[in-house]
């Protein structure tokens, strides 16, 4: 089989992608940061750092600490805010051939809806991804994504505010991920992405102080891959909307595992820090795998797990 006949295209709830490889929010800046190292035009989609209505300063340092095969972060959702994003960051992204997905976050349901509505006015945005791992300030700071009712409520409000493809990004810090997934599907999302980081911590035993100033932070990287893969498989079994796999993906083999488990596309996060060219290498790797196995389309391996 000729390598050029391998078809990598996938569709995520109305959003057509040239390949299933995207960058995970918060690990690829606003795209431009990686332009010296990677050909941005080749990516399936770029998902930008989470945007809120107002700029956010983020948490005091130290914000990151390395752990075995992973890292903890407590960035605190620092971002430039919607207006600066639209005036300073979006124009560059819209010049690439790659789809742009804007990740949004808020303190309350209304903030998410307002963000979605304002973003819908801008041509060129491919989809919206909502990060529901943030605390709902009006409900005592419980994360939207840890309660199926709150998760459904925020999804429904955003759904009303925009006609753009809507991806809901799930938090893994829950007892029943399937329950949350079904709730957001019912509330009208077009796709589900998972997982966000797993809550963790690390302690300096000499000073007996937490290594992160925020005490706890989100674990990412290869260490979380088995958990992420299990959750993606579980969710893919119980929803009809496309699922996007995230968590520790560091090679084409990792990406293919997620596709086989049922993900229609995947996101690369922490691995971008270690190798800024990893996304392109994974695209090539998936293509090579398909050619080797004489499979003409990536869509044929999605959910092809033999149990």
């Amino acid at each position, binding site marked *: 089989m000729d390598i050029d006949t391998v078809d990598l295209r996938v569709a995520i709830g109305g959003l057509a992608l040239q390949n299933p490889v995207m960058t995970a929010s*918060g*690990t*690829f*800046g606003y795209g431009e*940061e*990686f332009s*010296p*190292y990677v050909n941005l035009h080749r990516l399936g989609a770029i998902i930008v*750092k989470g945007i809120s209505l107002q700029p956010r*300063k*983020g*948490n*005091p*340092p*130290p*914000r*990151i*600490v*390395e752990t*075995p*095969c*992973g*890292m903890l*972060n407590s*960035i605190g959702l*620092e971002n430039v805010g919607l207006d600066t994003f639209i005036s300073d960051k979006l124009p560059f992204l819209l010049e690439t051939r790659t789809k742009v997905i804007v990740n949004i976050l808020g303190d309350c349901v209304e903030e998410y809806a307002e963000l979605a509505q304002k973003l819908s006015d801008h041509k060129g945005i491919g989809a919206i991804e909502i990060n529901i791992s943030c605390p709902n300030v009006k409900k005592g700071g419980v994360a939207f994504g840890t309660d199926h009712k709150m998760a459904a409520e925020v999804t429904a409000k955003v759904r009303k505010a925009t006609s753009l493809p809507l991806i809901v990004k799930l938090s893994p810090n829950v007892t029943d991920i399937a329950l949350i997934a079904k709730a957001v599907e019912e509330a009208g999302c077009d796709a589900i992405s998972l997982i966000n980081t797993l809550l963790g911590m690390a302690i300096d035993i000499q000073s007996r102080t937490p290594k992160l100033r925020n005490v706890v932070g989100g674990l990412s*990287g*290869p*260490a979380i891959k088995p958990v992420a893969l299990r959750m993606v498989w579980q969710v893919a079994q119980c929803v009809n909307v496309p699922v996007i796999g995230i968590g520790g993906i*560091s090679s084409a083999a990792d990406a293919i595992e997620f596709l086989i488990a049922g993900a229609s596309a995947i996101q690369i996060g*922490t691995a*971008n*820090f*270690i*190798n*800024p*060219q990893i996304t392109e290498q994974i695209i090539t790797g998936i293509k090579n795998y398909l050619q080797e196995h004489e499979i003409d389309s990536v869509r044929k391996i999605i959910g092809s797990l033999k149990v």
Partner: protein
Amino acid sequence: MPQFQKKAILLQNKKVTEDIYKITLESPEVARAARPGQFVMVKAFNGFDPLLRRPFSIYQVTDNGNLQLLYKVIGKGTKLLAGMKPEQHIDIIGPLGRGFAFDRSKICIVGGGIGVAPLFHLMKRVLRSPHPSKVTVLMGARSREEMLGITQDFEKLGVELGVATDDGSMGHKGPVTELMGEIRDQDAGWTVFSCGPYPMLKAVAKICDEYGWECQVSMETMMACGVAACLGCAIPAAAEEIGYLHTCKDGPVFDARELAWI
């Protein structure tokens, strides 16, 4: 400013003191683009543990165009780096960040321990500029052994050094900042360029503020990406409305007045 991800070839990895090494890398593109105060992100290890790249200042670009780093072995990553042999490949990203701005005429370099690393690159460039400045170098170290290790290249340049050691085994006994008062004079002030442990830099910034001297400091924070994407390298800014600056992009060299020094 050009930046690259390249496989550098290790030419030499030489032990300088008990725990300080000097590594020479062939990476012409990065070396050509490197300016004093900039750094590289180094991945010298395969596998996932350690996971992240490690940041190192550029110690110098050698006369034959190679890149040199000076590093202290403190943990997993630097231990692995110390074990690497000539002809092995090391993946580097760089040159990164904002370096020193050195157009002033009276330059005072204040280094502490391994903090000497970015200062040597600066020193070389200053001495080679068409109108060399008046330069004073003040260096602090734990002991005589460490001092000899970190200053041997400065001595080869023929510059005069003021030295201070913690144990008094060489030069002044006490912090290097105590030597700053000795160069205070009546005519126009010095511009200080400094790198070292945080408490030392804080003291240097305070003294410069008091004397009315310009002061540029090279800072260290934890870093995951080095390319302004993760926002992990936050450092508190003096201006409250700014909140945090980012060491990999706004630094690692800052005007001391930009920082909050908490």
